[in-house]
């Protein structure tokens, strides 16, 4: 037994692979946060008046708020005055017009991350908007998308080129008053992605963004806004990594999705922020607000997430089902290993008639990881014929980890049907041994069992992403039993 446990420890403590640092001159704001910081950021980005005012209102509101304590995660007090709120690679005055002009070191970084930029992008058929610390570096495929009227690029660019859309939709799904971190983000967000799909257009390729936190002690506050006009469709992928640091870094993003009549948005995330070392030192605090609204009839929003990184994850991608017959989906795999903590889940708010939602959550806890599912299904009085199905499964690997489930259900319409299923299981030593007796290594056995467990979620991911997610899960886990 002791031998087995040791092997398991070795597998579980496999090192983070994306922990390199790129040495590039940075252009940063001074440490700390006050109104001047907000103005500094807005000025740096040459923003119109309305946006500065919006940021300032958010900042003033944020100052009246306190950090939420209800999530089932534990961490030392964050000193918000000891964070650098803006860090951009220098030489932005002559911003790159094409990939060739991008600092080769950045390209190198992305290569290490396996991001398909440049020629890779064309081969892979993926349009990538890469956000490095706070600014969007390069966007591939932009011209091809532009022909179809699809706008895809950095948030900053959109502010310059399409201020009307930004003004109309920014904060319309997640208002700055929503929560502590959303308010903070609204005040200091530095960049992010913007995506607009015009009426009736089916976006011909997967749109993809990679985020990376490079600078030390930098908070990353990106803002993503996706608008799908009537009858349009888009599949959007988001991947995240960060270098290894022994201090914690804060990531507080806001994502807003708007789907109008008959539109569909599919949003997939593979999150692999640095989780901290095996002692629980360092790692990203990932406090994210993601929400979509099915504004029109028959609209559909689907969230799929594979969360393997971050020291702490606090995230509830949600859907407001406003349009009649609209559909909300949430498929999630969340893995916590070593000292990672995750409090994640979703909210499905049924407002329109015959709205439907599906929630499939798969939590995996290994090492000393703590994994909580927190979900809310709310059916308002107006939501005649609403239906929800939720399935929350927890898988335990070893005997020092924990799994918790906090489902909230609130139904105000008698015709609604809400189903909730939950299960907890443990990868047993017997299962591992059975596989080994048939010739499989411990590592392959655990991967096989975990992948089998996550199948329902993986099949929601676009093909290449599903493969990446499986590999990632393998790297993050590799073996274990208790």
């Amino acid at each position, binding site marked *: 037994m002791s031998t087995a446990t040791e092997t398991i420890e070795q597998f579980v403590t496999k090192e983070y692979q994306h922990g390199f640092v790129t040495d590039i001159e940075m252009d940063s704001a001074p440490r700390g946060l006050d109104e001047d910081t907000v103005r500094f950021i807005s000025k740096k980005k040459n923003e119109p008046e309305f946006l500065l005012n919006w940021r300032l209102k958010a900042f003033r509101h944020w100052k009246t708020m306190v950090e939420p304590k209800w999530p089932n995660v534990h961490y030392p007090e964050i000193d918000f005055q000891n964070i650098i709120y803006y860090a951009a690679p220098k030489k932005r005055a002559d911003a790159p017009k094409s990939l060739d002009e991008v600092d080769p070191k950045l390209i190198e970084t992305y290569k290490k991350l396996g991001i398909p930029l440049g020629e890779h992008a064309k081969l892979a058929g993926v349009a990538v908007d890469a956000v490095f610390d706070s600014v969007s570096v390069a966007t591939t495929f932009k011209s091809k998308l532009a022909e179809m009227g699809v706008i895809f690029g950095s948030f900053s660019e959109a502010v310059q080129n399409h201020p009307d859309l930004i003004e109309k939709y920014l904060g319309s799904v997640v208002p700055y008053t929503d929560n502590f971190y959303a308010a903070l983000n609204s005040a200091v967000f530095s960049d992010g992605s913007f995506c607009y799909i015009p009426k009736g257009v089916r976006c011909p390729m997967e749109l993809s963004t990679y985020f990376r936190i490079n600078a030390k002690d930098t908070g990353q506050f990106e803002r993503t806004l996706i608008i799908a006009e009537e009858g349009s469709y888009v599949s959007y992928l988001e991947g995240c990594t960060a270098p290894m640091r022994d201090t914690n870094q804060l990531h507080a993003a806001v994502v807003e999705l708007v789907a109008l009549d008959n539109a569909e948005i599919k949003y997939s995330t593979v999150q692999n922020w640095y989780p901290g070392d095996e002692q629980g030192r360092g790692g990203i605090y990932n406090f994210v607000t993601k929400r979509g609204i099915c504004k029109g009839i028959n609209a559909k929003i689907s969230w799929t997430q594979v969360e393997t990184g971050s020291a702490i994850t606090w995230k509830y991608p949600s859907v407001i089902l406003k349009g009649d017959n609209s559909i909300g989906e949430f498929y999630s795999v969340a893995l916590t290993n070593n000292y990672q903590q995750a409090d994640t889940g979703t909210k499905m708010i049924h407002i329109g008639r015959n709205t439907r939602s599906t929630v499939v959550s798969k939590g995996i806890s290994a090492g000393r990881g703590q994994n909580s599912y927190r979900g809310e299904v709310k059916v308002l009085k107006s939501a005649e014929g609403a239906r929800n199905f939720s399935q929350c499964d927890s898988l335990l690997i070893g005997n020092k980890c924990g799994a918790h489930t906090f489902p909230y259900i609130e139904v105000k319409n008698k015709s609604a049907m809400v189903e909730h299923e939950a299960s907890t299981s443990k990868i047993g030593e*017997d*299962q591992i041994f059975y*596989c*080994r*007796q*048939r*010739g499989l290594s411990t590592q392959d056995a655990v991967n096989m*069992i975990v992948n*089998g467990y996550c199948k329902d979620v993986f099949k929601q991911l676009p093909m290449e992403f599903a493969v990446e997610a499986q590999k990632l899960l393998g790297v993050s886990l590799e073996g274990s039993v208790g």
Partner: protein
Amino acid sequence: MLEIKNLSAAVEGKQILKGIDLTIRPGEVHAIMGPNGSGKSTLAQILVGREEYEITGGQVLFNGKDLLDLDPEERAREGVFLAFQYPVEIPGVNTMYFLKAALNEVRKSKGQPELDAVDFLKLVKERMKILELDQSLLNRPVNEGFSGGEKKRNEIFQMALLEPKLAILDETDSGLDIDALRIVAQGVNRLKKKDNAQLVITHYQRLLDYIVPDQVHVLHDGRIIRTGDKSLALELEQRGYDWITDGGKKSGLN
């Protein structure tokens, strides 16, 4: 093929095996019988590398290699197979997928090319007939929701697929009705070849009506106290274990 020399082992400080000697040659079928708690299953578990047992003495050679030095998966790839007494369920893992991965591991270690899905399916269909196994079982998660008999048949089916050199059957007859027992035993017999061997662990003689052993060993209190041919099994059936175990104590046989 298999040489067990003076093997002793303990679990949680308690001595279970107290010096086992056993030699199995290619083509042979050996049966190990004995009352509950005599150490039969422990012996099987140790041979396949279960880690909660502590080896306190002795040696096991498998085709000249020190078996106890190998990891469980290495033993499996060398051709040691255990048909489990209680096969575990592995939810979410498709049986076909599992078997293909297992078979290809074994093939890889033999330097053979891996089978693709088409060839694998062909092989599966052929071997399934031996066990009269319903193919729908193979599209379900490993052992999940299988009846006791289906689980046991699935074990022997895996044996048919992996073609081990040494197959250890741990109480494969327990929980089987007479028809299932016949099918399983016929399957085992059909898999018998002159270059492989079988070690059948059983509590009752009835399995040996179908699987005829070359040698029968009686295990008691961690020792093999008697070895004979199949007539020994019949004698045990008639007279129980008492006459032999008492005798063993008095005469100090080992």
